[in-house]
């Protein structure tokens, strides 16, 4: 296996061929936020939250760290202004759809929401401003974790995507029988695995 040396946020990193930038960053403790990534699943590259800036032959590019393979001599910036602007926008667009814990925690780091203490016992997340409102929260970011886990790990293919573009949504595949493993529920990043599914699946 060929050893590859690259630079992440100014630090030299040794990596193995076939590793992704996300894995290389993790190996030296550089944290890159993710939403649709899961180590048991194939890289998907859909949420784009792990976007990083790479410099290669003096050209700068924005790539998804969960999918981009390590390369010798590559310079990676995981925390640049451009990168943070993109992450902030992704969270700003997703928050109104899934205003729940996991997303709020991430969004706090980018100054999009705050944790407000209401009383001694009570406190809540508060979104500072909804610049891009959703009609109503769906509690689903369409990250596909449930769909892919059901397909790739449990190999049941009970959940799938329907619709295209802005009409995309998660739905049950007709005629498929759920084995009630409940993995989809625990893996859900929207924070609240669609109640309707749980009831439909009669878990």
């Amino acid at each position, binding site marked *: 296996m060929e050893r590859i040396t690259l630079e992440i946020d100014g630090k030299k990193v040794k990596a193995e061929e076939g590793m992704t930038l996300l894995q290389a960053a993790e190996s030296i403790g550089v944290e890159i936020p993710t939403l649709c990534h899961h180590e048991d699943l194939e*890289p998907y*590259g*859909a*949420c*784009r*939250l792990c*976007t990083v800036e790479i410099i290669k032959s003096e050209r700068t590019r*924005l*790539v*998804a760290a969960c*999918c*981009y*393979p390590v390369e010798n001599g590559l310079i990676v910036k995981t925390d640049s202004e*451009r990168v943070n*602007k*993109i992450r902030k*926008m*992704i969270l700003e*667009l*997703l928050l109104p759809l899934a205003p729940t814990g996991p997303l709020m925690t991430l969004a706090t780091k980018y100054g999009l929401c705050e944790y407000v203490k209401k009383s001694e016992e009570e406190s809540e997340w508060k979104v500072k401003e909804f*610049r*891009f409102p959703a009609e109503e929260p769906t509690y689903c*970011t*369409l990250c*596909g974790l449930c769909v892919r886990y059901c397909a790739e790990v449990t190999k049941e293919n009970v959940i799938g*995507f329907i*619709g*295209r*573009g*802005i*009409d*995309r949504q998660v739905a049950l595949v007709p005629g498929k029988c759920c084995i009630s493993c409940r993995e989809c529920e625990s893996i859900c990043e929207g924070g609240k695995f669609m109640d309707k599914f749980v009831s439909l699946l009669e878990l």
Partner: protein
Amino acid sequence: MGKIKSASELSKLRQKILSKRDPKKPCITICSGTGCHAYASEKVSNAFQEELKKQKLEKAVDIKRTGCHGFCEKGPIVVIYPKEICYLQVKPEDVTDIVSQTIKEGKIVGRLLYTDPHTNEKIVHESEIPFYKHQKRLIFGNNRKIDPKNIEDYIALGGYKALAKVLFELTPKQVLEEVKKASLRGRGGGGFPAGRKWETTRNANGEPKYVIVNCDEGDPGAYMDRSLMEGNPHSILEGFIIGAYAIGSHEGFIYVRQEYPLAVENTEIAIHQAEEYGLLGEDIIGSGFGFNVKIHRGAGAFVSGESSALVSAIEGKVGEPKPKYIHTAVKGLWGKPTCLNNVETWANVPFIIDNGAEWFKSLGTSNSKGTKIFSLVGKVNNTGLVEVPMGMSLREIIYDIGGGIPNGKKLKAVQTGGPSGGVIPKSLIDTPVDFDELAKLDSMMGSGGMIVMDTDTCMVDIARYFVKFLSEESCGKCVPCREGLRHMLRLLNNITSGKGNAGDIERLEELSEFTRDASLCALGTTAPNPVLSTLKYFRNEYEAHINEKRCPASVCRELIAYYIDPEKCQACGICTKNCPTGAISGKKGIVHVIDQKKCIKCGACIDVCPERFGAIEKISGESIPLVPKSMKVKSIR
């Protein structure tokens, strides 16, 4: 017909086909492309058969149903050889005259000829019609001479000669070098050098290697790949086999939209015939080289034209793009090296082999060689498919070939490159059309869509239309494309319906930049182009919609009102009769008035108001003048 087993057998077959054909024998060709088909060219063709039979001429005259001629505005097109007499908009009832006069007596049926709208001159020969005269129909030209269902027509014109040359005189490496030297760039949109792509696949590790024809054309108003696939499938097949030989592939796929039934049918026939003649399959022309082709019918998604999505679709999965940090050329179909090119790109290959890279390079501009087929549509007199050398200016295409703007209107802008292309304003129409020049203007070549817009076009509405198309055709997988487009569309809907707010333009710019930079595939990264280019050149229109609630082109329904000018109205009553909601009041001698509360702004009144009165107008951004009750009509002086 047995299989052809050598290059000399192929040329003998060509001689045999030609010797059986008398070039002096009259031949009636009827365009049977999709455009003419929609104009009932089949009925015209049947009428010719019956008429020839009736006049006992069926042996003396040939009939050929050809591929698309391109001048779709004037279909069905009939061209009579050997004199190349061209009749336009032919109906079955014209057939008797054509046979009795032109075929029997050699006379011209004047009423069916093309009339130059500027000089009123009648033009007899197809190639002399301005629409054709200014073109360079290299790839598309043979469509009109060929019955796409008959391989012998293609062979007669020198078809498969390039393939024989490649198989017997050149090594795969030499073929590759020739295509590289010709600087052929991909015609599907990206403009990536085809030779370099071929080389990457050839040199990539992994067997088998696959090659693919991308015929998933899906841009609104674009149909050049479709017409080529329908009209001359063997030219694509020949280029495809040559490419496979150069790359070292023995298995190929032609991805055709299911919605293109004639393209699917003609390609199926072409593959079958080519196999029958030994030009496809095992041991092609006795050379030992084998290559098999399968058709994959696309389930109709615009995004499936993206290479990684197309590959997924052929694999039987959902046609969704995947991150392409390792190119399809290296790791594509079933993880194997895969070279994917557009229909037109493959069709260029036999010409390069036949005539040489140097000849090909003599056409076009410094970095864009050869010709390009465009689908010229919208507000232009001669809509249709045009093929021109790279570097021809937009002005020449729109005015010399397209015949300018209809109804005395003026040009406003041209949209190039399909839905994710950009809008180019009139002030820049002297720009030479090639890959790099269009990119400089924030537009792109795309696959060759060219939509002409006149001054009645609202540029904000255009941006809204394309963003809506893309928001529905995006796969919806990645956040920047899906959510970015969702909110761009929401803002554009607001602006065009009079609900725009200060700050919307900046928000559109912010979203556009985000979607462009962060999306997963090229659909997303180019999707903001319609917004960015209209903002760049027509920002004042956005401002008028937002700040003054005015649509300068009087298009956006919620921002306009229909008004009858009391000075011009002659109280003829036509508008009152045609108004579907009964919104127009008025009687004989009394000026008609539109009740704005009842008006649904369908525009029926403006369409029916006699041109000599021209009393109805659209008002935007200003209050509707009050008309005194029961005002009497002023007579026309």
